[in-house]
């Protein structure tokens, strides 16, 4: 029995060692470093809460970056979830060639995180890019997508929304698991497609909506590639999300202590919002066998 226990531990060892060495140790080290002045070249010196005090009292860039990050997350996540659900709903119909469309709509998610797509995005939305060519063709004025601070964040948001495939696949699987007899019964009772969607589909999808909400929110808070490649955080820091600020502080300004403090503030924000989502889920998420009426 003991040898079997060790065998099990042996199988788990790669994961446990990886977790300890590459996640837990850096996680705790960054917590320690956030209370220090550390420039990588010399030993860290303990500064207590100085980094955090600076962040919240003196740092105009942090406030700007935090605001931009919150706007980005609160627009991207609902838009992406709504779009993913919409497409999943359509792809749930038995149409000719439906498997092709399901694959096609998932492709952006495979490509989405890549640098190549971010570069492509830069060309599509450039002054003489595809989007402006289309707008001009339709008789509209071309839009300054990247040069105008209000539009730049929107283009980054669109890139993330375009990568709706993973959320869509989960929605699609959930839609297919809904018992068809519920819709038949509702139809006999005179329910329209819309009322069926609102009163049957949505409530039965709430566990999946909740799951997607948490996953997408965490991912959105960690967005880096898009703004780094497309706008480099500009113009006027309008796309300067917190992960970019962390990167710049750590690897361009060599202030690893300060970067760690920002990372921990970001971590706490994600944790608090996740806890709020979990707390609120009791009121709007319905699981199978739920006795609530």
């Amino acid at each position, binding site marked *: 029995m003991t040898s079997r226990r060790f065998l099990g531990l042996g199988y788990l060892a790669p994961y446990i060692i990886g977790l300890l060495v590459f996640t837990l140790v850096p996680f705790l080290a960054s917590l320690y470093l956030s209370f220090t002045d550390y420039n990588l070249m010399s030993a860290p010196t303990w500064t207590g809460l100085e980094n955090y005090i600076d962040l919240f009292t003196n740092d105009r860039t942090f406030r700007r970056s935090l605001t931009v990050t919150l706007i980005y997350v609160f627009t991207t996540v609902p838009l992406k979830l709504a779009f993913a659900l919409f497409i999943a709903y359509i792809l749930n119909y038995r149409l000719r060639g439906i498997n092709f469309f399901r694959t096609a709509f998932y492709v952006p998610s495979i490509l989405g995180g890549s640098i190549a797509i971010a570069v492509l995005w830069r060309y599509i939305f450039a*002054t003489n890019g595809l989007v402006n060519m289309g707008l001009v063709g339709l008789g509209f004025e071309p839009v300054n997508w990247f*040069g105008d601070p209000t539009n730049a964040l929107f283009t980054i948001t669109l890139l993330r929304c375009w990568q709706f495939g993973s959320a869509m696949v989960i929605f699609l699987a959930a839609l297919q698991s809904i018992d068809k007899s519920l819709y038949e019964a509702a139809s006999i009772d005179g329910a329209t497609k819309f009322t069926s969607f609102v009163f049957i589909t949505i409530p039965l999808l709430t566990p999946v909506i909740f799951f997607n909400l948490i996953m997408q929110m965490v991912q959105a808070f960690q967005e880096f590639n898009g703004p780094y490649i497309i706008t480099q955080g500009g*113009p006027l820091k309008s796309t300067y999300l917190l992960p970019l600020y962390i990167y710049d502080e750590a690897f361009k300004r060599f202030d690893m202590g300060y970067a760690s403090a920002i990372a921990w503030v970001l971590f706490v924000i994600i944790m608090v919002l996740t806890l709020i989502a979990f707390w609120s889920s009791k009121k709007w998420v319905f699981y199978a066998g739920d006795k609530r009426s």
Partner: protein
Amino acid sequence: MKTLMTTAALALCASGAMAEDLRMSWWGGDSRHAATQAALEICSEKHGHTVSPEFTGFDGYLEKLTTQMAGGTEADLVQVNWPWLPLFSRNGDGFLDLNTVADTVDLSQWTPEQLAAVTLNGQLNGLPLSTSGRVFFFNMTTLAEAGIDVPTTWDEFYAAAETLRSVNGDDYTLFNAVKETAQLLVTLSVVQKTGKDLVDPETNRVAWTVEELAEGIEFYGHLVEIKAIRSMQEDAAAGNVNLFEKPEWAQGMIAGSYEWDSTYNKYAGPLNEGQVLQAVNPVRFDDAVVDGIYAKPSMFFAISANSEHPQAAAEILNCLLTEAEGIDALGDTRGLPASAVAAARLTESGAIDPNVVAANAIVMSATGPTISPFNEHPEVRGTFIDTLEEYAYGLISAEDAAEIIIEGANDVLGAFDS
């Protein structure tokens, strides 16, 4: 193979050194990678060591080197960008003091000024590879078609910008200036007017007054206003693409820029067939004190302070920079060499592109103050560019921008007070 091993063994006996395993890291493009690997192979064979190459593009190299330096795991031989010197060697002890291997490395091939630029607290941290500077490149074909002579003064430059647009249309701009180039044009104008670098070497504080810098920022604003350069909004709208990747550059619709002399081919290469790019003398104000172009040691080779084989690393370093085999193999992949013997050998053999030689000659003959590496401190540069952007978007005045830049730079400089 047998001959090769015998040669290596003989060389080993001749030098009296042990065969050591070394590592060398650098950044660059494909041609530099190929040339450096070939040079390492030749020098390794000659001195009986083995050198493992570690190379990447420029992006990410600083982050990689920083992480390695923090952990003491950097390669024995490292290529370092000159502005990074104060970051890695704050007290002068970040790299091996090459004076300790002066019997192996022929330091006489560098001038005292060149060695001074890489010396901190009396410790020689590396060997400069080339002196690089920003020069004015103009598309001579575009200028000729519009009947414009190469401008030598800023007044001629303003007039040329207007002529170009009136002859060829509003899609044409005389010059390029975005991000770092915009910052360096502001710097150029202030240096020309004052003769002072951003940093006063005596006090280690900003040498310019708010008024002097504000005038430089307004100079940039004027260039945008008369459409001699594109605004930051327009350039951002185009997707922040590198100048040499822009179709407008290839077609000659942007007729010039202020770029590193060693990058001549990077900018000349993409031009449409028949278009000629040429480095020209710096454009000056009528009352300019100096030419004021931005010139500095571009990069240097250093030996790690943690190297277990500094003597072997010194042998390879000397081979790469002063011995015929290494010089020929490296060629001009890091610009016109700072090493006198290398520069003479490559120039004589015609191995260096004459356009690069011409551009470098302009840099070397230009007058101006010695540039402080703090000009390129990430925080100084970041504050300068970000604040200039705020000015360009009309959020702050030139005076406010100048005050923010000077205050930010002085904060950084103050942290280096001993």
